[in-house]
């Protein structure tokens, strides 16, 4: 039996989260195939064929797959699922959207957001906002899994997989894409960034995030935020790092004016190096920080900016 990885892409490019899932798949036994479902997705297809350890790229290129609507993607995956022992997707908002639908259609339980593979049927996954790690053994004949991408390194792009075009059309016709409002930014994506600088309630308002932007520009960093900052309207929703926002694990995470609620820590505590800048020396964020600076962020951050 082989393993099927569902690619995350924007039709033109494969997202790095796909490479993370391929690495997870190498912990299982069997050939690794990738499904690229999209519309006019030649760019993504070609990139997928270069991911190491992948032997075959299955391509479903049709208008109904353009926006990754869960109904159509799930029907497609189910239609080609027979030969696979494991079906894996990144735990991105796309993967989280269509994978449980696939599971239910196959009448199997899903294992969400795995962080380790102990055996082909045994997986580790965080529960309760990462306060506990559950090791679960799944008895279903087919395993449907979403993968926490920060837990696995990205597979390199030095492969040369065969490409196979699928003639599969699945359009349930119950949902329709209207529009996407995706923030355009020259900065790296939060989940793929090497360095992240995040602001919390201590930033006081959205304008003050400008002082983080200057540091971010120098470090090539992405900008994140705590839920408090997002709820206060300082920055858009997609900045949120935490249990219900994005899970990140950069090499360097700089938390500015963030107290460190467990829901926020759940999203960033696997970062390699954590820096906290906060004027409250009792803030819980200092308990996970490698380097803490007890200071007023409005003097410390500009000073940091000047010294980089």
């Amino acid at each position, binding site marked *: 039996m082989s393993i099927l990885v569902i690619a995350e892409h924007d039709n033109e490019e494969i997202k790095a989260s796909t490479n993370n899932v391929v690495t997870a798949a190498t912990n299982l036994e069997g050939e690794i195939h990738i499904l690229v479902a999209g519309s006019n997705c030649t760019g993504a297809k070609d990139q997928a064929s270069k991911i190491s350890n992948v032997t075959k790229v299955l391509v479903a290129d049709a208008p109904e797959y353009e926006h990754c609507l*869960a*109904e159509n993607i799930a029907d497609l995956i189910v239609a080609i699922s027979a030969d696979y022992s494991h079906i894996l997707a990144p735990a991105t908002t796309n993967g989280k*959207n269509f*994978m*449980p*639908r*696939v*599971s*239910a259609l196959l009448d*199997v*339980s*899903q294992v*969400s*957001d795995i962080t380790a593979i102990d055996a082909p049927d045994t997986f580790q996954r*965080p*529960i*309760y906002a990462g*306060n*506990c*790690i*559950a*090791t*679960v*053994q*799944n008895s279903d004949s087919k395993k449907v899994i979403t993968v926490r991408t920060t837990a696995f390194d990205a597979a390199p792009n030095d492969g040369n997989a065969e490409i196979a075009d699928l003639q599969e059309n699945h359009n*349930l016709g*119950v*949902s329709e*894409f209207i*529009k*996407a409002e*995706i*923030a355009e930014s020259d900065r790296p*994506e939060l*989940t793929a960034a090497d*360095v992240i600088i995040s602001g919390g309630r201590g930033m006081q308002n959205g304008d003050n995030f400008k002082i983080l932007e200057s540091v971010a520009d120098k470090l090539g960093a992405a900008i994140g935020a705590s839920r408090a900052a*997002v709820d206060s309207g300082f920055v*858009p*929703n*997609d900045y949120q790092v935490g*249990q*219900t926002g*994005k899970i990140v694990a950069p*090499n*360097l995470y700089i938390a500015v004016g963030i107290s460190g609620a467990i*829901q926020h820590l759940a999203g960033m505590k696997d970062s*390699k*190096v*954590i*820096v906290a800048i906060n004027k409250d020396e009792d803030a819980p964020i*200092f*308990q996970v*920080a*490698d*380097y*803490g*600076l007890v200071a007023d962020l409005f003097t*410390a951050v500009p*000073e*940091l900016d000047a010294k980089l």
Partner: protein
Amino acid sequence: MKILVPIKRVVDYNVKVRPKADESGVDLNNVKMAINPFCEIAVEEAVRLKEAGTATEIIAVTVGTSASQEQLRTALALGADRAILVETDIEVEPLGIAKLLKGIIDKESPDLILLGKQAIDGDNNQTSQMLAALSGYAQATFASELKIEGEKAVVTREVDGGLQTISVNLPCIVSSDLRLNEPRYASLPNIMKAKQKQLDVVEAGSMGVDIEPRNKTIKVSPPPVREAGIIVETVDDLVDKLKNEAKVIT
């Protein structure tokens, strides 16, 4: 329009849970229980649709032990009209819950099913999508805005990198994200009134679906401990440590 709102009883979000000493599970002795925050948002959205004259009836439903009646009463106090407890002592997995809820959909024929995107205990984020699959309905997950327009729901979804707006045919499944609304507090008169509202109990075993768990929990362990680091005195120290000790900046 009739709205079904499935909810879940979970550990209160302020509680920091720990594994049991023998790692056989999560230590839930004497912890405060509450309605899952995302479910509360779903109830609120249903109540707003009723207040706007779009919805006519709101049914709250949950799968769990008899203790879950407490959370159903909370939903009734927030504005649900009646409630159903699908009672079982088994810790049912999302797939089993979705099968039981499908049975309730077949009986009640709601036009809209509104539920939370994930429960903060298992963090599975599965039930809505599975229910949509079993019903053959469209799904609009992670909703931050919901508008009913004729026979369709127009839903803005929180996705990686921004927002996506889709239109789905009714009946459909909508799962709430954090920013769909800010739930109200139940008033004392409404809490009193909720005690008189109809709450039916259905035995899960009578619904004729397989709810046996497929996943066995081998153990529940604490996450790797992150040692607290050091406090640096100045920005200069910080930059020096990042450059020369951690080597994460150049």
